[in-house]
């Protein structure tokens, strides 16, 4: 089996939508990143990474999430991401939730989605000040997950 894979996805031209990519980039050079973890900074199409998921037992996906939670908080979803809308919002690629469910059917990988609540998704480079200020805490939470530390699904306070 290959090492654990962490994939940050999103669009960095759309404000907080790109937070998964920002986290993946900072993760890649982080001194606390376990040696047994590979990191990909992706685009918006998770299915694009089906090949990289082969022969992995676990994949951690870091993505922006829309909802009522506090911006910058992190929520964990497993087991096919129940509780998340799988609606296809994209013209020519699958939603992240659909892609996760499909990839769990077609590869050996079990997926964990770490969803980061957003403040603003609009055309523009850079994160919102609220989410940007939370990036160190978000990184800490993601590193805990990658390090195999016990975690819950309540999200950061």
């Amino acid at each position, binding site marked *: 089996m290959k090492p654990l894979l962490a994939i940050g*996805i*999103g*669009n*960095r*031209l*759309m404000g907080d*939508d790109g937070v998964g990519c920002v986290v993946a980039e900072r993760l890649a050079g982080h001194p606390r990143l376990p040696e047994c973890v590979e990191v990909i900074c*992706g*685009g*918006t*199409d998770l*299915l*694009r*990474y*089906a*090949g990289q998921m082969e022969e992995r037992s676990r994949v951690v996906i870091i*993505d*922006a*999430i*829309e*909802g*009522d939670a506090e911006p910058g908080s992190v929520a964990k979803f497993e087991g096919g*991401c129940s*509780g*998340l*809308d*799988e*609606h*296809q*919002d*994209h*013209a*020519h*690629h*699958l*939603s*992240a*939730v*659909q892609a996760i*469910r*499909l990839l769990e*059917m*077609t590869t050996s990988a079990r997926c964990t*989605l770490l*969803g980061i609540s*957003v403040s603003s*998704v609009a*055309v*523009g*480079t850079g994160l919102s000040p609220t989410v940007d200020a939370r990036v160190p805490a978000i990184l800490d939470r993601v590193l805990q997950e990658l390090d195999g530390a016990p975690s819950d699904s309540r999200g950061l306070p």
Partner: protein
Amino acid sequence: MKSVVIEHLARVEGHGGITVELEGGTVGKVHFDVFEGARLLESLVCGKRYDEVAPILSRICSICSSAHSLTSLKATENAFGVQISPQAELLRELLYQGESIESHALHLFFLAAPDYLNFPSAIALAAAKPDAVQLGLRLKKLGNLVQETIGGRAVHPVNVVPGGFGTVPTIDQLIELRTALREGMADCDAVLNVIASLPPTDFCHCDTAYAALLSPDLGSYYPGDEVMLVNNGDRSRVRAADYRMLANEQSVLHSHAKHSSFGGRPFMVGSLARLTVNAQRLTGRLAVAMQRLQLQLPARNPMDNNKAQAVELVSDIERALHLVEHLLRDGIKDERPAEVKVRAGTGTGITEAPRGLLIHSYTYDSEGRITAADVITPTALNAASMELHFRRTVEQCAEREEAVLARRLQMVARAYDPCISCSVHLVRRQ
């Protein structure tokens, strides 16, 4: 007056929809509302240096990121009069073929096939037809490998730069690519079997005008700077620099996307248009594929765009293999990018993205910074044609049951493989 409003096109769009007004047997307004994100992103590059532009605009779309990068570079190089080497031209075409393989495989196997088979999603398709889904995944992986090898990564390529490429692939990488493409060739029959087995979709017929890049060697996506329009046997040519004459954009009240027409007629871009405009290419294996799929040109059914994508998928793998073999036979030169001397001016690049003509046009100042940018996507060019085909679909449907109409309209929309809201990627709580 009865209105059929499809606010949420399943697997198509979250920020738009179709509105149809019916009065008895008469079809009133048919509107297709589009949120077109690309236009808003243009403002992000104003004031940017020429070498910052392609990496930013490649983010317009995750599926077409190579297309946006390459079209952006073509526009910039045209503005500065930069001539890239024949090897760089060939590598860019190979990158484009990789993107097309990945994109067509995604569309045909994960988005269109569930429509035809009445599955709610690709997940249901995977449960019922795992072989078809595995085939699609293999082809996507093949397209990704081409893009990783040439572009430096599978999405948002980092190795294409003004003047050429940062680095060139090694012989070993090209040999690995050749092996993978040969395996891909073995999958081509299976592709045609899957597409040929899909139920017929004869619910929209009308004369259709087509526009595509005149391909110098008939099957390429990158080179060329002249567009041909085919309309009922009439052929017109438009040069890249005159793209505004081609797009002829008009604002419409009901949509954020402007509507394009040529000679007063909407036109369709994409796979079907490419095959129609460059029909001389359809020989050998492609002629057999056309026959197998019962695809005849010029097509009067927009659903045939799916069949045309399948023909292109076969063609793309064959051409990519041919390009790799060409590079291995002639030897790959370790060349640097052509020198870029900035100057004030305007440049336009037109290429064939997987879903049709893609136009980038920039104006630079004397320091090489953008003062104006214009990006016209295939979906924007297709918007008026889509609306025309939606109208014909409703007119030609004997039933007025909303569910029947909605399914047909969604399938026609899907056949265009539209890129509407792909600039945002959010997961939502239920």
